[in-house]
């Protein structure tokens, strides 16, 4: 087997393999990935909506809360699927139980490389400073 311009072409292929196999090399030797363990509130067992809903749609809920409370008719109370009423407030409602941002919000957001802009306006809670 003879390759023409073999040196250059093999160099190119090595670069190709280097780039495409980099994720495998980056993770090589590391322990199996597990989803982060969140620090759950101690005195409250149920969130505003179901765990499944909060897992995938909390950003949508927060977005709606902001719009309803600040950009709509100043509606400040949210009635959940069970008929229970909550004040629409990130700091007074959500952060009352989930007190520590670093132990709760950031855990998943860091792993999923999500940077929500909540804290552009809200006062940064204690957990962020750690």
């Amino acid at each position, binding site marked *: *087997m003879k390759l023409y311009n073999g040196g250059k072409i093999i160099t190119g292929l090595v670069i*190709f393999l280097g780039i495409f*196999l980099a994720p495998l090399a980056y993770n*090589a030797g590391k322990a199996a990935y597990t989803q982060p363990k969140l620090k759950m509130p101690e005195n409250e067992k149920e969130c505003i909506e179901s765990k499944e809903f909060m897992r995938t749609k909390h950003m949508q809920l927060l977005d709606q809360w902001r719009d309803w409370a600040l950009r709509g008719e100043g509606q400040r109370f949210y009635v959940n699927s069970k008929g229970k009423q909550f004040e629409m407030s990130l700091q007074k409602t959500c952060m009352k139980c989930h007190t520590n941002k670093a132990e709760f919000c950031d855990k998943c957001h860091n792993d*999923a490389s999500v940077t929500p802009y909540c804290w552009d306006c809200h006062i940064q809670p204690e957990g962020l400073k750690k």
Partner: protein
Amino acid sequence: MKAIYSLILVLALVVIATLGAGAAKMQTIFAYCVPGTAFAIFVIGFVAKVIGWAKRPVPFRIPTTGGQQQSLDWIVQNKWDNPSTGPQTAMRMLLEVLTFRSLFRNTKVLLKHDDGKNPIVAYVSAKWLWLFALLFHYSFLVIVVRHMRLFLQPVPQFIVAVEFVDSVLQIYTPIVYQTNLLILAGAGFLLARRLLDAKLRYISLVNDYFPLILILSIALSGMYMRYIAKVDVMAIKDVVMGLTTFKFKAVPASIDVSFFVHISLVSTLLAYFPFSKLMHFGGVFLSPTRNLPNDTRMHHHENPWNNPDIKPHSYEAYEDEFREPMFEAGLPLEKTPEEAA
């Protein structure tokens, strides 16, 4: 019709993934086996294809490229269009690969009329293909790079930065990535020009439509996951990390079926890649009109096909061989038989 065949093929893939991972409960196969195999086919197929190309000899240089070649000192050479040295050729390759200069030269034929209403064939510049091809390719690149957030742990700062720039407009929740819209515009245009331009439609084949529709479906299924289904990203990272660390676990039940559709379409693209026109990804680097310097007047290029047993045969030797018959036929000779004797 060919576009419809391609559409049906892609829809069939969607149905297979939906039924397979949804109704038939074969999540493990669709989450691990299919993408793993497809990636192996992609990498091995890609390398094999390029090695196959490397075995093909290049019979001669192809110097007929745009721009003034290197000539007399007082004639300005167009170094990037008609390079004569290695670095100049590297510059031409770089510009071709990164900015698609060949597409920038795209022209369109028009039939115009002069004042006397006589028809004139005109060639005018057509930059749309270049613009949308750039949008499409760079969006695709950014999308692949930012998907690495699901493949790497911890997520490198570079990936976070790409994410930030791509979602910098902060529109909608979850935030819309600009590249999502740009890739739809880019691929949409590339598909529309094949469908709407009669000349292009005539030369378009299933293997032109299929990758376009496949990539559009991948983009749409990804956007569906993010903006409509709002899939459980952490569970998906769990599965994807299982793939990249080879530590497979049971697929979490919370993963929406749209993830399996998306990953099946991507797997199809990966497995199809080495056997399709998409190999221009590797092929652009081996384009003879782009990567060969125009140095035919400086270096002798030996055609690798030449049979070494066939020796050069000069005119003098030819005349020596046929002098008598040529003389009898009255053909002009360098040396007459008397002079040669």
